[in-house]
């Protein structure tokens, strides 16, 4: 009976593992095969490395190297927005945790509410606002909204209000350090673990965001990779046999599309794998009520 229960447990877990992992395996293997072989061969077989090079050449040639541009745009948007997030959120979390000033509760509550609200709910309102200010189609219309990341402020706030002993900061003040110096020389060096966490969440959120850049950018040269993928999708016949010869002109078939998707997730996958352990510990330490 016990053994049967254990067996059943493993069968259930393994079935879900197949569901979660097989699509990823398929995505990794697909660029190694030609489109014809994808249809006739076994879905999880390996083709050849040569085929990957071929698929990359086709992808890279699409619309005069626009794929590289999209990846570069994504890096630019996500990294510059995340840099602003770090510069604004860490001091803000510190100020909210240890300061006492009028409006502190209001700022804290607003931060919490906007943090929990789905980000997509604000996309059209932000579009309407920036449209009023005639800022649509500008790269800053993506970077600046990305740079507003209340979750980062919340993480820094939790960290400073629970993990940093106030005695330490008081000691610095007694030694004659001003407010700014205390932050700069005592609080900021202590923030290292939180910097990694905020970087992770902000970078991943920006990299994966589709709706905001889709709504705010008009020129495909400005697209980040997520929106670029949708552009690529609509210019191939992969899911539309009716489009017929369309694919021949642009040479984008399923292997190219799979390769484009695979490369698009590599930066996030790297950040994911690197921070897996720290993340699981950190998220819970921060999220669970102390």
């Amino acid at each position, binding site marked *: 009976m016990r053994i049967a229960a254990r067996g059943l*447990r493993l069968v259930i877990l393994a079935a879900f593992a197949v569901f979660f992992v097989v699509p990823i395996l398929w995505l990794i293997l697909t660029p190694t095969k030609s489109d014809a072989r994808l249809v006739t061969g076994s879905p999880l077989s390996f083709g050849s490395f040569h085929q990957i090079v071929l698929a990359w050449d086709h992808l890279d040639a699409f619309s005069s190297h626009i794929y590289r541009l999209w990846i570069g745009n994504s890096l630019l948007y996500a990294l510059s927005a995340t840099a602003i997030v770090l510069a604004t959120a860490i001091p803000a979390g510190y*100020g909210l945790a240890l300061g006492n000033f009028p409006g502190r509760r209001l700022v804290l509550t607003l931060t919490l509410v906007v943090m929990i609200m789905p980000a997509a709910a604000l996309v059209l309102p932000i579009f309407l606002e920036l449209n009023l200010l005639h800022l649509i189609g500008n790269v800053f219309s993506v970077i600046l909204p990305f740079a507003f990341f209340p979750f980062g402020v919340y993480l820094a706030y939790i960290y400073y209000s629970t993990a940093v002993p106030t005695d330490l900061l008081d000691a610095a003040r007694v030694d004659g350090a001003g407010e700014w110096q205390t932050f700069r020389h005592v609080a900021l060096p202590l923030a290292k673990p939180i910097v990694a966490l905020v970087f992770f969440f902000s970078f991943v959120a920006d990299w994966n965001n589709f709706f905001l850049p889709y709504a705010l950018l008009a020129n495909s040269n400005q697209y980040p990779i997520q929106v670029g993928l949708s552009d690529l999708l609509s210019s191939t016949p992969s*899911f539309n046999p009716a489009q017929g010869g369309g694919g021949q002109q642009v040479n984008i078939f399923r292997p190219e599309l799979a390769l484009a998707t695979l490369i698009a997730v590599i930066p996030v996958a790297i950040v994911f794998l690197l921070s897996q352990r720290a993340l699981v510990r950190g998220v819970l330490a921060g999220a669970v009520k102390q």
Partner: protein
Amino acid sequence: MPFILLYLPFLIGFGVAPMIYALDLAFTNENGGGWNGFGNFAHTFEDYRFLPAFEHILLYTGIWLVALIVFVTGLALLLHGRANRVSSGFRFLFYLPGALAGAASVLVWLFMLDPAVSPFSFLMHHVFGIQLFVQSIAPGHLPFVFAMIAFWTGAGGWIVVMYGALNTIPRELEEAALIDGAGPVMVALRLKLPLIRRWIAYMVILSFATGTQLFVEPQLVNEASLGLVPDTWSSNQFAYQLAFRYGDFNTAAAVSVDLLVIGLLAAVLIVTRTGLFRRGD
């Protein structure tokens, strides 16, 4: 306090101001005209695309929530039952698809749903009787398809969160129950489950709010299906089309205010009801 001065412009500019401006647009006439009461809301409500879009997202969100509650909680309890290296390996595998969010996850699943190339084609042929891609994305299937994509990318993260919450349950409590003769299933359902209730509530409310905002999945399926699936399938798409195709910002704002209210309500519920964000001060 000077430390929040750099953050404040962002909070106001991209948090508070867009909401206020959307409210302002939603309750006024176009061209900066006067107060229009609920006119724009009534106008969108009468639009033939409004109700179907809300039906779609509610159905999709409902399916997704049931899947999250049953499978995330079930898998977390299963994994926590025997905590060992196998368990942490499975958690990692379940968490992995989280790296593929946004358009990437949708593209992957468009492939998975195409019987011509899918590794699941055997299942599709023999269990669901699907031979062609267009059958996979038939209108009746779409809420299930989108729920599956959302589950695939997000469930692993929630399993990790639930597992962490289960870890905060004192070991002695579990041991005492086992000594009293309770089996592992009994311990999971009677002891562990009630203790992680607020985390489940948090997951459900947050996912409900997120689910209603659905945009990228139907948008890409619309492009992949060459318009077979309407570009106003979800409410956010409908609002987007009102703004972009018709330039009707006031009615677009009305629909986004509907969605904003859902998101705000969910946030307020989580903060005031689950107790997860309540702090001493």
